[in-house]
């Protein structure tokens, strides 16, 4: 991580000037089949000229909706039901006419969206995009042509004059996001709204884009509102942070305060749930139990009350107002000294959490699963893609092997080849010493019993037409294990084992949240009592607080059942958390393998070093500098 010394300071110094944007009592509702969903329920904040404000929260917190509501960019089903958004303290964007709004969009407020692959019109050249942006605000033609190339140059695209004639599909994801930023800044707006601008990008590219946004914000004096779920991004880029939960602001503070000494139980819980590369190896994550509130029927009291360890009667019946604390930070909680109370309670749980059991001596034991010079080539009529290239790995009994890599590194192909969904093009796979590269019937059967898999997408990986009971029992039926009565009993046990109620068996997957579905997927994988569990990005679709629950569940199951586990992820911090050893993959090859702690502390391969450097740490810069 580079040293950032010239971070903008929170604008406590200029209380007299009118804020650039002033949001008061913002309410947004979405129409749905179940009636209105109250996505934003009273958000207040100010944005000063030139400052960088992060709005952070998990999915369903209302952070993106808040951003889109600021210049009325909500999708058709959404509408602002109350509140005001004052620009320069004069124009209320909530009541402004469409014509007035058009003057504001692009010229005063620019936006950058999450997915650069879909945010540019495939039929228009990049030059036309920039031209349209300036044309909308009356820049004359000659000026537009000249400025378009300048803008591309500004966002760091080489040979700008030439690339103006290229279409979006001729640019990579990171380059397209640069183009998006050029578009957003084309008319030199005062505010840049960036909605998860780096979430769809790989860590190394993410780092470059964040640097670009920071640098441009500074040189052009643009105020930036950064919407993100990633505490690391907040720590890296924002001076001030607004934490949203259940459609309301729960805490507002400078980044250093919010991340260093969080006041609200939710912020505290969220930060504890974030896996950190700089935490001592073996520290257990703390998930926040439960699931976010259903905003179609929002709670009357504090939205977090159901999941809060400190919640009292008042929390459930009355919404806590934003209290201003010394130093200008605000928090919405009835409990006056939440951090102190929580620390008292938390120390107990920290003591209870056992550090990761050191792996038994395995030096001379034979690996459970061994892969040597594995290759996989996908051929279609036109092209040939090498997904795996000479991959050799070993998985020992009772060990968790983490596999990290960016998208396209071949990690998903690797696991699918391991479980026999793809067949290997070359190389060998040995399971307990037997060659299962092209398994016969008997080997196949043994393999299905012993090697099971947990999938990435909690929505796509459960058959929507089957009950949860049938889903969990499916491997048992497929493999002819047990009688129907025995299977029913086993399903009940499994569901309770993964932290669900046994009655869940009669429901359909759609009745469950993402985290709960992932538990169902884990129960299914455990059903035939496998000795090897392969987890393909099991938590990357989940929110941080839920991710921690599932990571802990997997870690516990691994330890208690003595499973050997392969854990795939793109987030190095998560992988480090659960793994004994880590393998780093890039472009179909394993570039480095080593013990988890050792590999993260002293990476040898330049790619691993780059990957580690690119992961933003959720520790405020000032705190890091002090340490």
């Amino acid at each position, binding site marked *: 991580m580079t040293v950032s010394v010239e971070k903008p300071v929170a604008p406590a110094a200029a209380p007299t000037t009118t804020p650039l944007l002033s949001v008061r009592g913002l309410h947004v509702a979405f129409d749905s089949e*179940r009636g209105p969903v109250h996505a934003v329920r009273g958000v207040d904040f100010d944005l000063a000229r030139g400052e960088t404000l992060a709005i952070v929260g998990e999915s369903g917190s209302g952070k993106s909706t808040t951003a889109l509501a600021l210049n009325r960019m909500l999708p058709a089903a959404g509408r602002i039901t109350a509140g005001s958004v004052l620009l320069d303290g004069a124009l209320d964007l909530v009541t402004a006419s469409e014509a007035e709004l058009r003057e504001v969009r692009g010229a005063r407020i620019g936006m950058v969206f999450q997915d650069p692959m879909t945010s540019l019109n495939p039929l228009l050249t990049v030059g036309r995009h920039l031209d349209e942006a300036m044309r909308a605000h009356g820049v004359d033609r000659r000026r537009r042509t000249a400025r378009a190339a300048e803008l591309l140059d500004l966002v760091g695209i080489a040979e700008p004059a030439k690339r103006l004639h290229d279409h979006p599909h001729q640019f990579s994801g990171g380059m397209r996001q640069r183009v998006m930023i050029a578009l957003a800044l084309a008319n030199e707006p005062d505010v840049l709204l960036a909605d998860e601008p780096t979430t769809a990008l790989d860590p190394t590219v993410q780092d470059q884009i964040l640097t670009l946004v920071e640098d441009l914000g500074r040189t052009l004096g643009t105020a930036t509102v950064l919407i993100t779920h990633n505490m690391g991004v907040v720590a890296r880029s924002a001076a001030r942070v607004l934490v949203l939960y259940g459609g309301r602001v729960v805490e507002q503070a400078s980044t250093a305060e919010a991340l260093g000494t969080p006041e609200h139980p939710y912020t505290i819980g969220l930060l504890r749930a974030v896996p950190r590369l700089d935490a001592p190896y073996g520290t257990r994550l703390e*998930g926040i*139990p*439960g*699931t976010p509130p*259903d905003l*179609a*029927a929002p709670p009357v009291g504090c939205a977090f009350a159901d999941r809060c360890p400190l919640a009292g009667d008042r929390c459930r019946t009355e919404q806590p107002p934003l209290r201003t604390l010394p130093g200008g930070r605000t928090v919405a909680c009835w409990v006056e000294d939440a951090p102190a109370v929580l620390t008292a309670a938390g120390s107990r749980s920290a003591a209870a959490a056992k550090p990761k059991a050191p792996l038994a001596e395995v030096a001379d034991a034979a690996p459970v699963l061994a892969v040597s010079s594995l290759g996989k080539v996908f051929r279609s009529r036109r092209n040939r893609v090498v997904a795996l290239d000479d991959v050799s790995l070993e998985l020992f009994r009772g060990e968790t092997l983490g596999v990290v890599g960016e998208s396209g590194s071949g990690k998903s192909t690797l696991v*699918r080849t391991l*479980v*026999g*969904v793809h067949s290997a093009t070359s190389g060998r796979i040995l399971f307990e010493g037997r060659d299962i590269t092209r398994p016969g019937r008997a080997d196949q*059967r043994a393999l*299905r*019993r012993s*090697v*099971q*898999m947990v*999938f*990435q*997408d909690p929505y*796509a*990986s*459960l*058959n*929507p*037409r*089957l009950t949860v009971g049938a889903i969990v029992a*499916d*491997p048992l039926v*497929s*493999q002819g294990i047990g009688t129907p009565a025995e299977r029913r009993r086993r399903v009940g046990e499994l569901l*309770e084992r993964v*932290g*669900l*109620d046994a009655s*869940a068996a009669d*429901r359909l997957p*759609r*009745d*469950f*949240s993402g*985290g*709960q579905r992932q*538990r169902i*997927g884990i129960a*299914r994988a455990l*059903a*035939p009592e496998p000795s090897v569990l392969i987890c393909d990005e099991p938590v990357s679709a989940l929110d941080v607080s839920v991710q921690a*629950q599932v990571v*802990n*569940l997997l870690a*516990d199951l691994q330890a208690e059942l003595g499973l050997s586990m392969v854990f795939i992820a793109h987030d190095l911090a998560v992988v480090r958390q659960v793994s004994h050893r880590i393998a780093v993959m890039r472009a179909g090859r394993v570039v480095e393998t080593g013990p988890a702690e050792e590999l993260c502390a002293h990476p040898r391969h330049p790619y691993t070093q780059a990957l580690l450097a690119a992961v933003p740490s959720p520790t405020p810069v000032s705190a890091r500098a002090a340490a």
Partner: protein
Amino acid sequence: MTTLTAVPASAAVRRPRIRNRYLRGLATPRGVIGLALVGLVLAVGLAAPLLTSYDPDFQTADALVSPGTGDHLWGTDEIGRDLLSRLLYGIRSDVLVVLAAVPIAALVGCGLALLATAHRAADVAVQRLFDLLLSFPGLILGLTVTAIMGVGRGTIIVVIALVETPAFGRLLRGAILVHRDREYAVAARVGGAGPLRLLTRHVLPNAADPVVVHVALAMSVAVILEGAMSFIGIGIRPPEASLGSTLAASRPYLEDHPAYALGPLAVITALVVGLNLIAEALNRGARR
């Protein structure tokens, strides 16, 4: 370990009254109207001998009698045949063709789709066959097949089957390919499900929706196509009663004897509109 995770109550209790999603779709205003229209036409067709005492081919002395006059409820045609009889028996011959052709198309099409999704080589062959058949618009195919097979009921059935087989086949093939690659299907394979179990338990129940919806649409296409072929004289030919040929025969008398044309027009419209409403109702039911 975390505490037991509660299921949101609001999501759990609301369970629809009718469990089968197709039936749920049909029990909407759209579905009920569709079923009523199609049911009514089928009922009068079935009950033809009870509703009219005239043989559809019997020629009386009174030609071009208007409705309501004399003994003929709906009048007579230019050679004195009872129009109501010809209409009701025409429904029978129409329905017979549709009910023979559409199931054949559905079975053959789905069979080919299953074959195509099972073997790569078969897939190429089946796809080419479907491409070829689909490149013919229905009526052009009708003309071509009639040139080869000659005029007759069998020809119409073959034509409709040829038009609809690739439609069924493509729908099912596409749906199977999509669902077979979904993560839940991969999960079932990893869980040990063999090809047959994978197909019957996991893939087909999810892939069947478009095929079920298409049965109603195919019937509507069949009604239209049979009518068109009989109308231009390459389908069911006089003296046998059919909706299309009756309509063609009525053309010269549209000014003086509009009831002549009105019968087949109303019946064809009712069938086509009804079947399309049913298809839409099924589609909406399946999407829930």
